[in-house]
């Protein structure tokens, strides 16, 4: 058994950490956060030059042809620095969906742009009033016959696959504020499908929002918007796999953010003085910090568990994959809440300010523990899947 990172992965992690320490410190991040777009396109270019954007994309489409393990290394480093750019949206959710469901032609058209940093993608799955459910969107896809297409709009029929149109509204589209292409779930003839929509196409409008942690999202409206099918694999399977991978990625990010939170909190306990001594000399706080450490270890273990689940290549691995990711996220959600709440509490008032970094970590962790799902819905799901341990009565041995 070898659970350590390979030399190449370690090298990736440490050179990225070095870059982020010098080029993405608190003041740089603050400036990005305060900018109009809330992201830095220059940083994005640098990430592209470092080869981060296409890590898991096959080499034939401009990527590095590595695995999710390398992506997890990047996410953890991004978690430590609270990177604001839409890596999860574009390089994880978006790129994985195109790799899994795109035709050769679509992959050639989109992935090289993603890898070189010229295209932002976003996965548009969630809908108002449906919480975390992705199974049965109200958004519909319609295929117009050639004559209908010509009757309503002379241009549609000639534009290749553009005779498919989407109608519906998506919410909480991560990275949807800057996306050039949307990957959209919609129902056609009672079946879930995946579609690609150009953000600048007619019939597409969006409202940009910012999450509490500063990351951009959007509500997106598709009003008979022209779309391409992404159908070289069954949509439901692609969505499940893409989401499991994104969840594993966000867990790695959470570990990075939690590790930094705990380090900052421990530093604060050592240096902040009240009643003539560092507050960390109080055993009440020492024990609580120790509990945070134990939570972090749990999170680290489960982020690894999830990573192994999504990189497993054995026969029938998909079934276990989803179950394991769900189990991992239950633990990571809980630890993210625990560590973010305790970090603020032990900092006192300063933990609630924008000026001091700990609150920013708490915001990101608060959002992460409710991204893609939350602990309650996951716990119910895991129970329904039968849990992790087979029933077995000892007296039947």
């Amino acid at each position, binding site marked *: 058994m070898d659970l350590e990172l390979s030399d190449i992965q370690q090298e990736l992690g440490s050179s990225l950490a070095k870059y982020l320490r010098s080029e993405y410190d608190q003041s740089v991040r603050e400036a990005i956060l305060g900018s109009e777009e809330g992201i830095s396109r220059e940083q994005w270019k640098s990430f592209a030059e470092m080869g981060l954007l296409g890590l898991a994309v096959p080499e034939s489409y401009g990527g590095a042809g590595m695995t999710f393990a390398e992506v997890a290394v990047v996410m953890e480093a991004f978690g430590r620095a609270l990177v604001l750019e839409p890596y999860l949206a574009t390089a994880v959710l978006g790129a994985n969906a195109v790799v899994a469901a795109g035709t050769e032609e679509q992959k050639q058209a989109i992935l090289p742009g993603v890898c070189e940093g010229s295209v932002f993608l976003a996965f548009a799955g969630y809908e*108002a009033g449906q919480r975390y459910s992705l199974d049965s969107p109200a958004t519909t896809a319609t295929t117009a016959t050639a004559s209908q297409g010509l009757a309503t709009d002379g241009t549609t029929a000639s534009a290749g696959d553009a005779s498919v149109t989407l109608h519906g509204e998506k919410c909480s589209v991560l990275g949807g504020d800057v996306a050039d292409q949307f990957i959209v779930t919609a129902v056609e003839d009672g079946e879930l499908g995946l579609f690609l929509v150009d953000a600048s196409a007619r019939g597409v409008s969006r409202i940009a929002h910012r999450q509490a942690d500063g990351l951009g999202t959007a509500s997106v409206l598709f009003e008979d918007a022209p779309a391409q099918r992404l159908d070289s694999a069954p949509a439901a399977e692609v969505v499940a796999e893409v989401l499991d991978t994104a969840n594993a990625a966000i867990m790695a990010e959470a570990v990075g953010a939690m590790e930094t939170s705990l380090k900052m909190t421990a530093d604060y306990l050592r240096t902040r003085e*009240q009643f003539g001594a560092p507050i960390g000399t109080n055993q009440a706080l020492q024990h609580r910090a120790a509990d945070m450490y134990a939570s972090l270890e749990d999170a680290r273990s489960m982020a690894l568990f999830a990573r192994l689940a999504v990189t497993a290549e054995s026969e029938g691995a998909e079934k276990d994959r989803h179950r394991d990711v769900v189990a991992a996220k239950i633990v990571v959600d809980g630890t993210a809440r625990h560590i973010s709440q305790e970090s603020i509490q032990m900092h006192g008032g300063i933990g609630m300010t924008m*000026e001091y970094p700990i609150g920013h970590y708490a915001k990101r962790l608060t959002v992460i523990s409710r991204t893609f799902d939350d602990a309650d819905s996951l716990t119910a799901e895991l129970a329904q899947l039968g849990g992790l341990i087979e029933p077995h009565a000892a007296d039947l041995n």
Partner: protein
Amino acid sequence: MDTLLSAQERDFARQMRQFYRTEIPESLRFKVATGQELSKDDMVTSQRILNRHGCAVPHWPEEWGGQDWTAVQRHIWLEEMQLACVPQPLPFNTSMVGPVIAAFGSQSLKERFLPDTANLDIWWSQGFSEPNAGSDLASLKTSAVRDGETYIVNGQKTWTTLGQYGDWIFTLVRTDPSVKKQAGISFLLIDMKSSGVTVRPIQLIDGGHEVNEVFFDNVVVPVGNRVGEENKGWTYAKFLLGNERTGIARIGMSKVNLARAKAYAAVTKTARGTLLDDPLFSARLTKLEAELTALEMTQLRILSTQAAGADAPDPRSSVLKLKGSQLQEDISELLVDVLGPQGLDFVADRVQAEGFSDLPLGAVDALPAYFNTRKVTIYGGSSEVQRGIISKALLGL
């Protein structure tokens, strides 16, 4: 007593309920009910109506506008106010500085300040905490040096809530640096328009501007603005903080917020019904209801002994603060969880734009409130400080 409230008390509660619902404008109560931010004018309007009806400062001495009410009646007054979502009287005026001036101030200070304080014609800020004097408040450094009939004040206060609206600030200042730290403190009232006073905003992670830093640079303050004796300020501060702690359980408010979470959950669809039917969510919610009831009973038990004559602050009020603040935080977390992915953005309005659906109820305030509510276990004596009081004063440890 074998009924919770006597017939007269129940009658009193009915009167209060009706008064709040007929006299306080619906628009103001709606704002509180839906978690909207109150403007300065909103708070002034509400307090003046309450004051006109003898309901702003019932706990003050009768000659200064108080009512001859029992502890139980005062409890009902506050509880019904919270249940009716009435904007509460400014605590700095009515629970903090008012009672201190009434108990320890000179006749001229009482005449000058108490009527205006009750009516919110003067907006008071609390200038106790300093960057290095938080939990260890007595280590405060802001100095007041006697110069004939004036003090010259230098130093810095921080976390000054709503200091941007403040007309006057009540402060703890060091008047004798040569003695034990608690023995050299005085309670001084300072006009915030004095030259040398500067107020600077602090941005909090909830996106709002609630607190400030206040700087004093050679501010001249008449000796007559001192409350009580020189170097006795710590005694007055302890009196003030004792009063602060009793009202801080906010049980009525927690009931309103829990009711809100429950109502929203009932209209939130999940894969298996509504969120309110979800066993895990409903277990969390129900447990909070039971815990809140336990806290309410504890509060009534404490009150019933106070009604029988005890007037000194009860150390058990630390239990109310400890439990009440934790419940407020738990409930704020629950409300965020009701919203799911649509609760993660910071938005100004539920209405998005033409063609887009409205955001769910609570989408504007739930997450900011969650971050803001972190304060309740930090201020007014943090949870750690309350546990210290309980273990020392009640358990003799």
